[in-house]
């Protein structure tokens, strides 16, 4: 870590749990951490946010699963993964052995699925907390995405908070595809979320000019990368303005230290790096170091001093 070099205290927290640095991976963009090992010291990261896991193993969707877009990409993986059994048997022990912190992303299509996953993750070594991916279709509501409905979203969060290990902070991961993100944020906060992860991908579409049909088998997919950064920052800004006390894990298009700084200034106390990893597998550590350097250059003694700074009237520099 570069704490010593820059003199900036980079410690922060997810909920009540302290982490040594504010840079995490983003769910689905670093699998379960293993493949990053040649490029990144996993223990130096705030945490590895694992690919969203469901109860059962999932094949994911047929290919093509992605399309490159200007300064971004569209994906439709369909949450391919080992299921909770596989995660508990292989991936989490692997991370725990190395001393890497896991922030486990869980997903489901029923409120009970989420609760059961939280239950299964109680007290698991190395599991720092849970990120609840509510950008999934709710099978009990004609497939409407949980995150798009404050009531459905809060149902999930209260069930998870009730079932989860009290020592594990629970973050709700919000979708930007809503008319009023503050109302969703407020609903999940009231339901017991300890923090908010923002943002998940935007719903997008690309048509293949050769086949003249949507590129992705799933027709639409999730848009990520620097292209969406202004939208992500806006969401973080709005929610921090409305609820400054709620911790935010910011993400969406972070590619370098100055991008991460924007999220911190807007109100995020930690950040996740997603699509940028595909461009640069060492991005999470590089961004940690760059963020420390840009904070130092601006005279911040600690990361926490900078959180939400952009909301303070100009001239109030600390």
């Amino acid at each position, binding site marked *: 870590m570069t704490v010593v070099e820059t003199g900036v205290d980079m410690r922060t927290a997810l909920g009540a749990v302290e982490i040594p640095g504010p840079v995490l991976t983003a769910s689905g963009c670093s699998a379960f951490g293993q493949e990053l090992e040649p490029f990144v010291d996993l223990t130096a990261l705030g945490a590895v946010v694992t*690919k969203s896991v469901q109860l059962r193993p*999932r094949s994911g969707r047929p290919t093509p699963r992605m399309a490159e877009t200007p300064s971004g990409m569209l994906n439709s*993986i369909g949450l391919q993964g080992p299921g909770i059994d596989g995660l508990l048997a292989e991936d989490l022990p692997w991370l725990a052995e190395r001393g890497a912190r896991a922030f486990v992303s869980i997903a489901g299509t029923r409120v009970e699925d989420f609760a059961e996953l939280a239950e299964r993750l109680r007290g698991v070594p190395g599991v720092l907390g849970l990120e609840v991916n509510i950008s999934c279709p709710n099978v009990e509501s004609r497939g409407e995405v949980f995150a798009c409905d404050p009531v459905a979203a809060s149902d999930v969060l209260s069930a998870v908070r009730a079932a989860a290990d009290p020592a594990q902070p629970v973050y709700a991961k919000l979708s930007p595809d809503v008319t009023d993100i503050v109302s969703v944020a407020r609903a999940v906060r009231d339901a017991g979320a300890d923090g908010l992860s923002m943002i998940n991908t935007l719903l997008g579409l690309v048509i293949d000019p050769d086949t003249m049909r949507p590129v992705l088998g799933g027709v639409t997919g999730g848009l990520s990368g620097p292209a969406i950064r202004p939208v992500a920052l806006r969401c973080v800004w709005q929610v921090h303005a409305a609820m400054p006390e709620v911790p935010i894990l910011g993400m969406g298009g972070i590619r370098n230290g100055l991008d991460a700084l924007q999220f911190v200034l807007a109100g995020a106390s930690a950040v996740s790096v997603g699509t940028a990893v595909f461009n*640069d597998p060492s991005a999470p550590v590089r961004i940690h170091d760059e963020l420390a350097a840009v904070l130092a250059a601006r005279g911040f003694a600690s990361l926490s001093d900078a959180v939400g700074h952009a909301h303070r009237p100009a001239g109030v520099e600390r």
Partner: protein
Amino acid sequence: MTGRNGHAGHVTEPAPKPAHPPVQREVEVVGRRPVNAYVELSLAAPEIAERAEPGQFLAFAIGGETSALLLRRSIAIAGAGDGVVSVVVAPHGPGSTWLAGLRVGERVDVVGPLGRPFPAAPAGARALLVGGGYGAAALVGLAARLRSQGHEVAAVAGAASADRLCSVAELSALAAPVEVTTDDGSAGRTGRVTVAVDELLTGVGVVYACGPMAMLRAVADAATALGIPSYVAVEESMACGIGVCMTCVLPVVGEDGRTRFSRSCVEGPVFGGDRVRFDDVGKLPHDVVGADAMGVVAP
């Protein structure tokens, strides 16, 4: 056809994991040479050159910090030695066109070597190498390794037309016979690689192929039909190249006979030719592990 489902016996083992993990380096272009319709680039990348094994690939960042193209482009390693790795690039879309336009002295960010290499040939086996288009380039290192291990090597290089052939001279120095085919007859025999492959398969103990999916399938099917193990290096659309994004999957039959969506970047690009379910690429067959959770049920 074997390989269509998990129950039949398989004559291949999964390709081995590479001996070394990849590295990420900004490297200098030290050579650039147009080769027919392609461009061969040489890169000063000692750590990559010493780790590279035939069948592996590199992933290139495109266009620097301000580029709108975020995803790396995967390119097979065509040669490695003396601190230099080389690749053969076909200018196609914006990314490969940018790569092919790199000039000597320019620098490029590269991750590699990536993916699983071609496995060794069975002891004493005669090997047949089949390359389609620029895919032939990826076989040159393999041919050299096989020869150094005492194997007899034959090769077929095919392409749509003469200008899309690749590495024929290099292969001719290492393999015999080397047959050339072109779809339009502008060089060698007229037709697909299979016209030559079918003739050369007799007596062969292992087949290696690199090229377009349709060619890989034809070659693998021909080998499998004769009970000959084949290894194909596939070319699936990749977002990360290192195994973290799950965009590059194919339905591949594992050692347990079950089909999984396997990542072609880290579980491939080299797969047993009888293990790739070519027919089901782009589909979600009900017997893929986890298809049930997607709501796909057996018919």
